[in-house]
C-alpha cells in the first residue's frame, strides 16, 4: 500500500474547519481557537456559525463510540462515461480520495445512537461537493434496503452542494429514482426515516432522498434548494429575497420540521426514534 491509496479505515484529516491553531470565522470574522471549535462540534464559539464537517467526523459526533459498522467500504466509481473536463474524472476521483480519505462521497452502515440501533448514511460536502453518482446512489439504496430488512430507523445526513454528479451523466440522475424507490418501499413497510439537511443540500439530492424523511430537519443557515441561485437570478432577472434557500426559508415555507443546533442533534434524533418506534412486523 502506498500512502496515495485511499483507505476508508484511515482516520481522515480534520476538514471543514481550516487547518491551523487559530482560524477566522467566515460569519463573524472573529479569530477563534481551533481546538475550541472542534470541541464544540465545529461551531464558532462567538456566533454559532456551523462549519462544515466531514462524513466521518459527523458519524463520530452522532454515534456511540466504537459502535459504527461500516458497509460497502470498497465500492468505488469506475468513470462510466470516460468523462474529461479540465482533467479526467478518474484523476479527480483520486485527488478527492486523497483529500478526504474517503472512497466516494458517502459512508453508510449501522451503529448505535445513544443506545438505539440505527442504519445511517452521511454524504460528505467535500467529496466532489457531496454529489451523487452511481456509488452514492447504490450505497444509499442498499442502506435503505437493509434498514427495511432489519426494521431499523434510517438516518441520512446530507451535505451535497453538487446534487446529481455531472461526471456520471444520466446514471447520476437515475440514482435519484433508485434511492427514492427504495425509500418508497421502506415507507410502505412502516420504516422511519429521518433526513438531516446540512450545508449545502442542492439539486438532485434535495429533489430525491433528502426531501423524503418522515421527519426532515436542518442545521441552521444551511443552503438548501433545487436550482442554484445564479441560475435563478439569470432566469428571473431579479434579486433574490433575503435568506432565500436557507434552512429558515424552507421552514417558513413548510418543507422542514425543525432547525436543530448541532449540539442538540444527537439528543433530538434519539427522541424522534423513541417516539416513532417501528413495529417488529408489518401491520
Amino acid at each position, binding site marked *: 500500500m502506498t500512502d496515495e491509496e485511499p483507505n476508508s479505515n484511515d482516520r481522515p484529516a480534520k476538514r471543514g474547519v481550516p487547518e491551523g491553531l487559530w482560524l477566522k470565522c467566515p460569519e463573524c470574522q472573529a479569530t477563534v481557537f481551533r481546538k475550541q471549535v472542534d470541541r464544540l462540534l465545529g461551531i464558532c464559539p462567538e456566533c454559532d456559525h456551523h462549519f462544515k464537517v466531514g462524513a466521518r467526523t459527523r458519524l463520530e459526533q452522532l454515534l456511540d463510540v466504537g459502535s459504527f459498522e461500516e458497509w460497502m467500504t470498497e465500492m468505488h466509481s469506475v468513470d462510466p462515461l470516460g468523462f474529461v473536463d479540465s482533467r479526467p474524472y478518474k484523476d479527480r476521483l483520486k485527488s478527492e480520495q486523497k483529500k478526504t480519505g474517503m472512497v466516494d462521497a458517502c459512508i453508510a452502515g449501522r451503529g448505535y445512537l445513544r443506545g438505539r440501533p440505527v442504519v445511517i448514511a452521511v454524504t460528505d460536502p467535500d467529496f466532489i461537493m457531496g454529489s451523487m453518482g452511481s*456509488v452514492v446512489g447504490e450505497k444509499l439504496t442498499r442502506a435503505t434496503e437493509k434498514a427495511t430488512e432489519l426494521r431499523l430507523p434510517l438516518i441520512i445526513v446530507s451535505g451535497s452542494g453538487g446534487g446529481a454528479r455531472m461526471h*456520471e451523466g444520466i446514471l447520476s*440522475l437515475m440514482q435519484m429514482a433508485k434511492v427514492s424507490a427504495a425509500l418508497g418501499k421502506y415507507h410502505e413497510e412502516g420504516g422511519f426515516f429521518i433526513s438531516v439537511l446540512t450545508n449545502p443540500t442542492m439539486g438532485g439530492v434535495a429533489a430525491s432522498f433528502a426531501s423524503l424523511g418522515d421527519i426532515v430537519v436542518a442545521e441552521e443557515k444551511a443552503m438548501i434548494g433545487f436550482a442554484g441561485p445564479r441560475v435563478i437570478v439569470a432566469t428571473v432577472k431579479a434579486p433574490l429575497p433575503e435568506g432565500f434557500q436557507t434552512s429558515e426559508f424552507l421552514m417558513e415555507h413548510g418543507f422542514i420540521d425543525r432547525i436543530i443546533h448541532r449540539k442538540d442533534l444527537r439528543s433530538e434524533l434519539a427522541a424522534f426514534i423513541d417516539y416513532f418506534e417501528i413495529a417488529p412486523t408489518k401491520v
Partner: protein
Amino acid sequence: MTLRPLPFEREIHDLEERLESLDAQQDQTPEKLEAIKNMRAEIVRLRREVFENLDPWQIVQVARHENRPQTLDYLDLVFDEFIELHGDRAYGDDRAIVTGMARIDGRKVMFVGQHKGRHLKERTLHNYGMPHPEGYRKAIQKMQMAAKYNLPIVTFIDTAGAYPGIGSEERGISYQIAYNLREMSRLPTPIVSVVISEGGSGGALGIGVGNHVCMLQYAYYSVISPEGCAGILWKHAKHADKAARALRFTANDLLEFGVIDKAVPEPFGGAHRNHRQAATNLKVEIVQALRQLSGKSPQELIDHRYDRFRKIGIFEEGATKGDEVVS
C-alpha cells in the same frame, strides 16, 4: 417546404434552393430534367449521410427544432381521444404539464405530458415547458387516480428542466419532484414514459419513473443541459457542443447504460419533417409496451419498476489499487 434548416443542413438547404429554382423554370430540356433528378437523389443521399452521423450536439439541435412535434401534436396524432383534467388540488394549474383522460388503440389511459408551445403566446402560456411544483403535483395526483381505477399511465417528457424560479423554490420544487419519484415507483399500474425531445434533469425524471421508458431517436435525456454543463466546466455556454459529447446523453448511449428500453426510430431527417410518421412510430411502441405490461399483476408491476431502476448504475466493489481493481 419552409422548415428552418439546421446549421449542419446548410449544404442540403442550398441544394434544395437550387432545385427549387430549376424546377420553377419554364423551358425544361431533357438535360435539365436529368439534372433535377440527379439533384433530388443527391439531396436524399446527403441528408442520409448527415443524419446517419449526427454528433450529440447536432442531436440536441434536432431535438429543439421549432417544428418538431410536441405533446399536444402527439395527443392529436397518437391518441384517439383526450379530455384534459386540470386540478392539482392545492395551488394552481400549471400549463407546462398537461394531464387528462386519453384513449390509445381502444385502451383507456391517463396521460401526463410536458408541453413547450411553439409560438410566443403559446410558449408563455405553457412556460416553455418548464413546470413548477404544482405541475408535478397535478401529475402525481392524476397518476394516483389512474392507479385507483387500474388505468395505465402514459407520460411524455419534453422539458429543459423544472422552472428555476423564486416561486418554484418557495413552493417546494425539490420536495415535489422527490415525492413524485417515490410515489411513481409504488403505483400498481403500468407506466410507459417517453422522452419525445428534451429530457432535462430532475424536471424530466419527475414524471419519468416508468415500467417501460423509451425515447425518440433524436431526443436527449441528461442530468444537466449541455449549456449548463459547459458553463460550469468551461465557464461559457458556447462550449455546449463539447459538453454534449462528454455527457453521453443520446438514445444510443442511454440504451447502452440500460436507462431506456428502446430508441424509437424517427422519420428520415427528423420528426419535424414528418409528424405523422413520428406519431405512428411512437404509437406502435406505446401500444406494444402497454400490451406487454397488461399481463402483469399490480405487485408484479411495482416489482418490475423497482428492479428496472434498481439495476441502474455502474461501479465496482473491489479495493482500488492505482488504476487496477483488486477484488
